[in-house]
């Protein structure tokens, strides 16, 4: 039998909880109100310890103060989490759909024979089950699922919950690792930072985002000319960066940059959740996509189904003409 508690796997940066962690704590608060349990945040490593008191929304924060856990490596992380989950026996564990969460969630599910749901957008208690909505197929399909037993391991998409606005300082329990931490066969070596010198897309007011709809490297020029006419910069979805048509510093999304421009003009970008999480705070989104069902139209204020290769040159001209006229 699980307890009614809700656990949150916390992630931290520079002594501060990550945005996704504060969102998870907000979601966990709502869920705990329904289950009648506590919200317990788990912080792994010494480096995150200073963020423990800032875990707004948690009743209790458990910090495993061991430097082995400062950088992610799968063996020690899983060993500690498996132990804590078995001990705490929560109703649900909320994990961010982050590059660490995507590894840890399913692995814990398999180890503990626990139910796992990925890409969660909504979590509610319904009778003695949890009712969860998950996003599939790049955001084109939603699934409402029932999770009947705990601990439910739920990997949550960024932006699904709000941080709580009722701050209270949590009780913090700092402990040594409850299990021996063997380094395992996959170990952290070093962080590699992006090369400096490229345009900082996070500081731009106007961005022209290019997606796979651009089709060929030769066509990048049309988007470049448009960005120039607008006085903005080019950024891209992941497939463009994977092709090497733009550097990684121009990628917007989960493993790329988080941008908040005044204008994001999305050319041939479908609007997969991993891309959208990097452009949530944009002022105005205009999307050009030949597929009327593309999820990008759900976040855009204006859209058109015209072919980007036909529209972009016309738009460049229209901008130039109006600039001359004013």
């Amino acid at each position, binding site marked *: 039998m699980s307890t009614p508690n809700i656990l949150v796997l916390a992630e931290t940066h520079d002594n501060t909880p990550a945005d996704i962690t504060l969102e998870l704590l907000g979601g966990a608060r709502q869920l705990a109100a329904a289950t009648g349990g506590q919200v317990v945040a788990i912080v792994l490593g010494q480096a995150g310890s200073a963020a423990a008191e800032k875990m707004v929304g948690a009743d209790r924060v458990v910090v495993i103060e061991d430097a082995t856990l400062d950088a992610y*490596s799968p063996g020690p992380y899983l060993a500690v989490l498996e132990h804590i989950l078995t001990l705490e026996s929560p109703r649900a564990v909320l994990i961010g759909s982050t*590059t660490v969460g995507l590894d840890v969630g399913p692995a814990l599910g398999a180890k503990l024979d626990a139910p796992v749901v990925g890409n969660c957008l909504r979590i509610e208690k319904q009778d003695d089950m949890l009712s969860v909505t998950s996003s599939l197929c790049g955001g084109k399909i939603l699934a409402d699922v029932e999770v009947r037993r705990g601990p439910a391991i739920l990997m949550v998409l960024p932006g699904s919950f709000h941080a709580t606005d009722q701050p209270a300082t949590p009780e913090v329990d700092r402990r040594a690792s409850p299990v021996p931490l063997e380094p395992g066969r996959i170990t952290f070596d070093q962080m590699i930072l992006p090369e400096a010198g490229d345009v900082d897309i996070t500081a731009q007011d106007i961005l022209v985002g290019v997606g796979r709809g651009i089709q060929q490297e030769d066509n990048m020029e049309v988007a470049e000319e448009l960005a120039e006419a*607008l006085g903005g910069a080019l950024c891209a979805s992941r497939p463009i960066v994977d092709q090497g048509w733009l550097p990684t510093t121009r990628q917007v999304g989960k493993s790329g940059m988080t941008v908040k421009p*005044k204008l994001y003009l999305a050319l041939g970008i479908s609007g997969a959740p991993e891309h959208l999480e990097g452009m949530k705070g944009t002022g105005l989104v205009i999307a050009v996509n030949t597929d009327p069902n593309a999820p990008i139209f759900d976040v855009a204020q204006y859209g058109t189904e015209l072919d980007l290769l036909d529209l972009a040159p016309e738009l460049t001209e229209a901008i130039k003409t109006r600039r001359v006229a004013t």
Partner: protein
Amino acid sequence: MKIAVVLRQVPDLIEPLEIVGSGNALDLDGASFLVNESDDHALEQAILLKESAGATVDVVALDFGDVDNTLYSAAAKGVDRLIKITLEDDKPPAPKAAAAMLAQAIGPIEADLVLIGCQAHDELQGALGPVLALKLGLPYLGVVRGVTAGDGGLQACKEFPGAVMARMNVQLPAVLGILAAESPPRYVPVSRIRAAMKSTQFDEQPGAAEPTEPAVVVRRMYHPEPAERAEMLVGSEAEVAGRIADILIERGIVK
């Protein structure tokens, strides 16, 4: 080095996705399939390792969708062996059953390295890689972009936000969940695929599914109905371009 690569089929998102009459699953009968994008990167990474460090590459796939074409294309890229796991019905198995079948086929290969895409867009219950790794008794690292062979092991780069990567040392055997290979999947000319169709034999193995009780039950699948959708601009290219330019000027974004 012996490498095993998992190639999965996923519905093509370019085509409209339909829901079955009972409303709780995708209608796969009418769907068109293609290879899961990150699995394709996993295959490319395996071939790059084969070219740079020397390796055999065995591909393992479950038999549904357009799997034969995916396997012929892998053959044309130069893999050594193609294992097709045949299924009792023509449906993708549930994740646990899929992991068990793949592990059963991969186990005897005694692979040093198992590569699988770190995600598939139709995965409801999270990534398959970690579940497969546990079945094989191997460690797992996912969201990997680029793997290089070094002395006594591999180095894999795991992606983090902000274009930051963590370089990790990987002692084999291990399972890696690939997001992107060091270079994009290579193009194979149709003529090479046709030649592979004539010369390639699949190693067919029946997949035995263990019956499992589902812990996650799908009640409803549906197309999202957004609270607000974009105002769609229609007309010729010149008209729509003019309208967008006007909007940008009205809002003071372009001066």
